[in-house]
Structures are given as structure tokens and as C-alpha cells.
């Protein structure tokens, strides 16, 4: 076959080694991905922001006229900074504690700080309301039993304050910081710390002189991620802020979607500062860490276990688990079994009727199924798409550079845009031609793909980098074609990483609340959005039931993903 090629005049276009198959076809394939993903990701944002700037920016004038807009912006900034600072502190401290865990509890103890991730933010916040409402929060009531506080009629804590929104958001975000910093610590190995210990440094001194400086890339990366999440934070301000007149930009945006006709220009104007801040954070991350470091690469862990261990570290992690997961879940369980949310702990009146009424309600059950189905469909598209994009990012020479840069950009952009803003943009884009899919389940699938394509790409990129190119080269050298290499070599090798990506994506999508609430229609609901509806128009016991169903389905989903991806994949998360 190749002999003809050499003998013919001109360029070799055809055949396996020809230009068409080798150069043109792949570029067209990648270009297609860039165009489709680019449309999904960029179009809504561009469309929306255009609305903010037409008519000489009158939308910004309207924004300036909003009551208390100054307070809203200030609250947004405070919330973003304080909660991400708290998350970084707590997450890093937890990771350090995890590194000090005694061997006997190490395995569970390292996973424990991830458990809050299985409790969706809506559920956690609801649980916290039951615990910390100033007068009837269970925790508050118990604290008031203490001799020092017995004189109080309410409190000592009031969850409906900026302080507590910051605290709760910070706690919710600290798990993410833990993931990155913990991985960083693991990769660092123990030799450097051991060396410092051999020089006579105490654990605390080691922490500040050796560990933290070395972890700087991980911490900077994590700080950027949680700052973006904190700025787009929506759940806690929405559920906690309203009762005491606390608004942030995202909740203002959400209020807009409740008024007909929706003032998209105003929403775009409200989202503009968030968008700009998002870009700045991503650029700073890029500058601070350099191209490579943005990707946290998992490598083999050290063979030696020369750590000095501390039992109090297990205590810290246990306390964290108790506070972030166990207590809210207990409160939810109790309320779900109570006839109504009451400020008393009377075990005699417990009932399962709210569980029955939720499970008998076709709207709610449908929403659960819609959530599962749309998440699973989205994941089925996201995994191969993200895998392809991650693969493209790894190809240094064979992909036309602008295409590779475009893919990199598309994998980064969704991370810079908070879900609530993205949801608002998607609502705008998909309620009108050319793609009018509002009101169908398709809009949820498209929304989920748009939100998660960045995560899917980044996580699988990490897997691919860790897997190494040489296994693929070995396959090619052994005569394996593209398909054989992919199916028999690359995919089996990446199975755990893909399983972990699928599990994490499922958790994030099933818990997705901010964007879902924006793009849902009355008849296409997901569990997060119906939960909000029950919240605003039903009995809180049913909210608790739904929250617990969310937790249960999450656990089952993660277990299935782990079963597919192998038990190691949980660690990869």
C-alpha cells in the first residue's frame, strides 16, 4: 500500500498514512468538538452579556437603582472572601490532621472529610436550620440547657446572619480544599518532613516551615476553586439570607427569574462582576502556578510510613464529621419523622407519613427520576467528551495549536462562571431560537454538560497524565490500531480515574441546585428544584424526606460508580 504512495507524484493524500486521515480528519474532528462545546459554553454567556451592554448599558443603570444594591455587592464580596478563607484554613488543617492520623484509623480517617460531599448543600443547609434557628434550633435549645446560657430565650446562635452564612458556606467548601491539599500532601511524601523532624523540628514547626510552603501550589489552586464557588454561592444565601434581608448577586438574579417578563439585561449586569472576578481568579491561578501546576497530578505514594501520629488528629476529623455531616443528617432524620417541624424533641409522636406522602407523590418521585436520568445521560456524554478533550490537551504536536488552545479555554471557562450565572444564561439562550429546548429534559442535560465539561476534562486529564503516554506508544508499536489501543489499553488503564470522575460528576449533578433552579420548567423538575418548591409551599418534614432521599441516592450512585471503577477510585476522588 505504501509503495504506491512513494512512487506517485505530488502529495500522499489517501491511505492510512496519507494527509487526509493523518492530518485533516483529526483536525476536523477536534474542530467539531470545539465548535459544539464552544457553542454550548460560550454562546449563552455572550448572548446574556450582550443584553447587559445594549441600549448604552441601561441595564447597569437599572442595577444601580436596585434597592440596597451596595449592600448586596458588599455581602457577595464578604461571603466570597470570608467563606473561601475559612474553607482554606479548615481544609488545610484537616489535611494536616489526616497526615497525622494513627495507622489504625488512617484509611477511614482520610476518607472521612470527603463524606460531607455526599450531603447536598440544600440538605445540609436545611439540616442546619433545624439545628441553629435562634429559638427552636435543636442545638440552640440544648446549649440553652447549659448553666451559663440558661437565662437566654433564644440563641446563643442565629443562623440567619451573614456570619453563619459564611461559616456554613466555608464548612461546605472545606471538603474541596481538603481534596486538593490532601492529594498534595500525599504526593509530597514524608521524607521531607522526616528530614525536618530529624533536625529537631516539632510537628507545628514542620507544618509552618516545610509542609505549608511546599503545599503552596495545592493551596493556591484550592483557594481559587473555592473562591469561585464562594462567589457563586447560592444555596445558603437563598435559604438563610431571606429571613433577615441578606441578599447576594446570585439571589438577586434568581429573584429576577420569578418576575415576568424576566429582565435578562439586569440579570446579565448583576452577573457581570462575578464573571469578571471569575476570569481574574482563573488568570491569577494560571500566573501563580504556571501551565503545568494547574493540573494536580496524582503520583505514587511513598513506601515508607515514617510519620509521627497523633490521636487528637482523629478527634479533629471526627468532630468535623460530626458537625458537618452527622448532626445535620440527624436533624433531618428527626424532622422527616416528625408530624411537622416543631421546636421540641418528643420521640413519641414520630411518624412515617411524610415518607409515604413523598413516595406517593408522582411529581416528587418523577423529579427524583428526572434527576437520575438527566445526570446519567449527561455523564454518558460528559465522560467521552471530557476524555477526548483531555486527550487533545495532551497531544503536543498532532493537534493544530489554536484548536488545542480553544479546547483548553473551553475546559477552563465553565469553572470561571458560577453555576447560577451559567444557569441564568442558559435559561436565556434556550428559551428562544435557534435552540428552543426550554421545558424539556434536554435543557437539563445540556445545562449539566455545560456546567461539568471543565471538571470532566480536568479530572480525566489528571488520570491520563498519571497513566503515561508510553503504554499507548507500546500498544502502537505492537501493531495495535487506534480503536484497539483505546479499548484494550487506554480505557482499562484509566478505568479507576474515569470511575472516580463519573462518581464525582454524579454527586455534583445530582446535588446541582443553582443552575437547575434557573432552567427548570414547571413540568421538568429535578430533585433540587422540587425540594425548593416544597420548601416554599409545603411541609418542612417533606423537605427533610427529600433531602435524605438525595443523600441516599448519592450514596448508591457513588457505590455503583466505585463498583464499576474499582474500589481504588474512591481514593482518586
Amino acid at each position, binding site marked *: 500500500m505504501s509503495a504506491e504512495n512513494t512512487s506517485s507524484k505530488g502529495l500522499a493524500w489517501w491511505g492510512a498514512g496519507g494527509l487526509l486521515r493523518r492530518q485533516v480528519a483529526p483536525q476536523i474532528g477536534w474542530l467539531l468538538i470545539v465548535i459544539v462545546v464552544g457553542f454550548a459554553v460560550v454562546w449563552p454567556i455572550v448572548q446574556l452579556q450582550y443584553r447587559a451592554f445594549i441600549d448604552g448599558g441601561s441595564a447597569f443603570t437599572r442595577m444601580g437603582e436596585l434597592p440596597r444594591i451596595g449592600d448586596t455587592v458588599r455581602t457577595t464580596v464578604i461571603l466570597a472572601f470570608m467563606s473561601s478563607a475559612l474553607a482554606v484554613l479548615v481544609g488545610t488543617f484537616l489535611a494536616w490532621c489526616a497526615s497525622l492520623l494513627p495507622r489504625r484509623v488512617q484509611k477511614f480517617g482520610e476518607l472521612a472529610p470527603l463524606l460531607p460531599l455526599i450531603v447536598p448543600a440544600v440538605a445540609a443547609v436545611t439540616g442546619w436550620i433545624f439545628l441553629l434557628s435562634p429559638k427552636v434550633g435543636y442545638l440552640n435549645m440544648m446549649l440553652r440547657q447549659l448553666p451559663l446560657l440558661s437565662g437566654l430565650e433564644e440563641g446563643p446562635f442565629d443562623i440567619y446572619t451573614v456570619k453563619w452564612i459564611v461559616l456554613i458556606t466555608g464548612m461546605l467548601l472545606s471538603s474541596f480544599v481538603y481534596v486538593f491539599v490532601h492529594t498534595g500532601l500525599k504526593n509530597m511524601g514524608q521524607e521531607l518532613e522526616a528530614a525536618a523532624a530529624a533536625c529537631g523540628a516539632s510537628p507545628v514547626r514542620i507544618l509552618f516551615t516545610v509542609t505549608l510552603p511546599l503545599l503552596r501550589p495545592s493551596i493556591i489552586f484550592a483557594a481559587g476553586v473555592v473562591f469561585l464557588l464562594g462567589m457563586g454561592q447560592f444555596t445558603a444565601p437563598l435559604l438563610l439570607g431571606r429571613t433577615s434581608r441578606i441578599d447576594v448577586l446570585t439571589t438577586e438574579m434568581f429573584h429576577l427569574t420569578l418576575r415576568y417578563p424576566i429582565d435578562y439585561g439586569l440579570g446579565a449586569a448583576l452577573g457581570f462582576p462575578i464573571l469578571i472576578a471569575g476570569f481574574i481568579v482563573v488568570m491569577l491561578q494560571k500566573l501563580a502556578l504556571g501551565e503545568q501546576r494547574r493540573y494536580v497530578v496524582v503520583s505514587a505514594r511513598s513506601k515508607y510510613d515514617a510519620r509521627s501520629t497523633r490521636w487528637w488528629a482523629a478527634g479533629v476529623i471526627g468532630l468535623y464529621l460530626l458537625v458537618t455531616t452527622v448532626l445535620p443528617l440527624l436533624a433531618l432524620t428527626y424532622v422527616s419523622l416528625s408530624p411537622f417541624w*416543631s421546636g421540641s424533641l418528643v420521640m413519641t409522636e414520630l411518624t412515617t407519613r411524610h415518607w409515604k406522602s413523598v413516595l406517593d407523590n408522582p411529581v416528587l418521585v418523577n423529579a427524583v427520576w428526572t434527576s437520575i436520568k438527566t445526570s446519567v445521560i449527561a455523564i454518558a456524554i460528559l465522560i467521552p467528551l471530557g476524555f477526548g478533550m483531555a486527550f487533545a490537551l495532551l497531544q503536543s504536536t498532532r493537534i493544530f495549536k489554536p484548536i488545542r488552545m480553544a479546547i483548553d479555554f473551553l475546559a477552563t471557562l465553565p469553572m470561571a462562571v458560577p453555576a447560577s450565572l451559567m444557569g441564568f444564561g442558559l435559561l436565556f439562550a434556550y428559551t428562544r431560537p435557534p435552540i428552543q429546548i426550554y421545558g424539556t429534559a434536554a435543557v437539563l442535560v445540556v445545562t449539566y454538560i455545560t456546567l461539568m465539561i471543565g471538571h470532566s476534562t480536568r479530572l480525566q486529564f489528571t488520570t491520563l497524565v498519571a497513566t503515561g503516554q508510553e503504554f499507548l506508544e507500546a500498544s502502537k508499536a505492537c501493531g495495535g490500531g487506534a480503536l484497539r489501543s483505546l479499548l484494550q489499553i487506554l480505557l482499562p488503564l484509566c478505568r479507576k480515574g474515569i470511575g472516580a470522575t463519573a462518581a464525582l460528576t454524579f454527586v455534583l449533578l445530582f446535588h446541582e441546585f443553582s443552575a437547575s433552579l434557573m432552567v427548570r420548567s414547571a413540568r421538568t423538575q429535578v430533585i433540587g428544584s422540587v425540594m425548593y418548591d416544597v420548601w416554599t409551599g409545603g411541609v418542612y418534614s417533606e423537605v427533610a424526606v427529600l433531602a435524605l432521599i438525595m443523600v441516599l441516592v448519592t450514596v448508591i450512585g457513588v457505590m455503583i460508580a466505585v463498583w464499576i471503577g474499582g474500589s481504588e477510585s474512591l481514593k482518586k476522588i
Partner: protein
Amino acid sequence: MKQLDTILPGLGRFALATAVLATTLTAAFAPSSVSAQQSWNNVLAAAKKEGKVVLYSATPPSLGNRLVAGFKKAYPDIDIEFTRGPSGEILTKVGQEQSGGVDGADVFISTELEWFRARAKEGKLLKPVGPEAATWPAKYIREGSVITAGLEPLTIVYNTKLIGANPPTSYADMLRPEYKGRLGTSELASTLLIAWYDWLEKTQGKDYLQKLRAQNPKLYNGTTPLAQSLAAGEIAVGAFGNITAFKTLMDQGAPVKYVLPNPGLGFEYAMGGLAWSRRPNAALVLMDYVMSKAGQTAWSGTGEGASPRTDVPGAIPAAAITAWDSSAYPPEVVNKYRAYWSGIFK
């Protein structure tokens, strides 16, 4: 598989359009007096063929569930899908469905009367043609197609465990010093709330809202979250409430009670069949059911509200309720008031 139906809504559209055309033609060409029953039978037959009706309603879940159960019993051949939400929220969704050509609500019930009137003037609401419409009091059919399906008085509510003797009976009582910090009220979740705050100022004095604000009330997104907090004891008194929202909790044994203040304000639930509906006949049938004696008994026979009909046992008489005048609150006024209210309360 159900996803596919919603993803590809256009599939059954042609068939539907034909059916609608057929019934409209039949109605138009038939001699009116003789065949009113005949043409209604045609509607019923077409509705059966449509097989389903979608109701969006701002009524509390319990009320909605009663209506749904009753309708299922009366028309077992027609499936009913019910979506509940706060008035403003579902109104936005309906508006988006209209502009986006999305298959959504067939019948819509909400307190946003003016929205219905505007749509009716545009000819975007179905004319109720069922037998019940013929006898419905004219006062409660506006623009020929906006039906007042029920009326409710606004109430003051309190927690019986926290407020023993001397419960509040009027809006003036909201300003009692002992209620400071223990009071709850609603945000401007719908136009009704705007009218109510406006009415409070007019009846209780110009500085009433300032004084109410000074009581440092907790704000809730509508009456349901307020009801939950009241039942839990987070607040002792709620200035804003409607009976249906509290009935659910009272049925569960929650320690809440309501009082009808005098003077007091009430509101109407407006109902309309949406002209862009994919199931117009089923919509007409559902509307007819809501207006029937059975429907109205399901609605207000529990004593939660009033019926325009006079033959509903257990209902509050409609005449006792002064409903707010929605026509006095067009969008410009609403937006202005929103800013004014936020200035005081936020």
C-alpha cells in the same frame, strides 16, 4: 422514555391541532341553543382523546391535591398533572412556556388577576363553554374568560403554645411590644402582598409599616415558610397568612391558630384556560370541574375559603370577603411600590 416525549414535543402536535380545529368548527357551525349539550359532549370526547390535562396552581398543596383527587374521580379517563408553586414563580414559567412554545400548562390558577385579564384581552384565554360556566355568577367571570375560582380572607396567625391568653386579633396588635423580634411577615412574593402592605398603610395609618419594621419581623418567602416557622415556634405571631397554608399544619397537630382581623382583606384565585395549550378540550373540562359543585366543595368545603357558588356546604360566604382590587396595581405601580417597600424593610 418519558424524556423523549418531552424532548420531542412536536410529534403529537399535528394530530392535536386537527382535533382542536374539528371541535371549534363543530361549535361554530352548530345551532347554538339546541346543541349546547351536543357541542359540550364533543369537547368531552376530544378531551378524552387528549387524555391528559396539566394544571399549574398557586394554591397550597393540600387544596390542589383535593382538586386533583376530585377530578380524577369525576373524569377517570383524563390524566391530571399538577404543579404547584408561588404565584410569581409559576407565572414566569407560564410566560416562558407561552413565548417559547413549550408544552406546559393547560389550566393556570393564581392570584395574579391582572395577568389573566391582560391575556384575556389579547384573546389568549379559552372561553369557558361548559355547563357550569353558564350559571356561574357574572361578577366572578371577568373579560368573559377569567374565572374567580375561590376567595380567601387573609389572616393573622399565632402559635398557641407561645401565645396563651390574649391572642392578637387585629393588625394594630402586631405592634404590641411583647411581639418585638417574635413576629413574622412575608416578602413581596406576589402582587397580592403589595396590595396588602398598601392596604395596611391605608387602613392602619401612614406610619404603620415603619412601626411594623421597628418590631424587627422575620421575613419569609410567602406564607408557607412562615407557617413552618410559626409551627416550630421560631416566631410566635405571623402578620400574614391564608387559611389553606395553615390548615395542612393544623391537620398534623401543629399548635397554630388563625384569626380573621377586622378590618381585613381577602384575595381571589383566578383561573384561566390557556389558549396556547396543547390540550384545550381537556383544559375546558378541568375548568368546568373546578366550577362544579363537587369542585367547589373540594376547594372550600373545608371552611378554608369562600366560593362564588352559594350551594357549597361549609364554605365561607363570598360576600364576607373584601377582595383586593388588582386593577389598581399595574406593573408600574408594582415596581414603584417594590422599591418603596424595600426602602422600609430592607
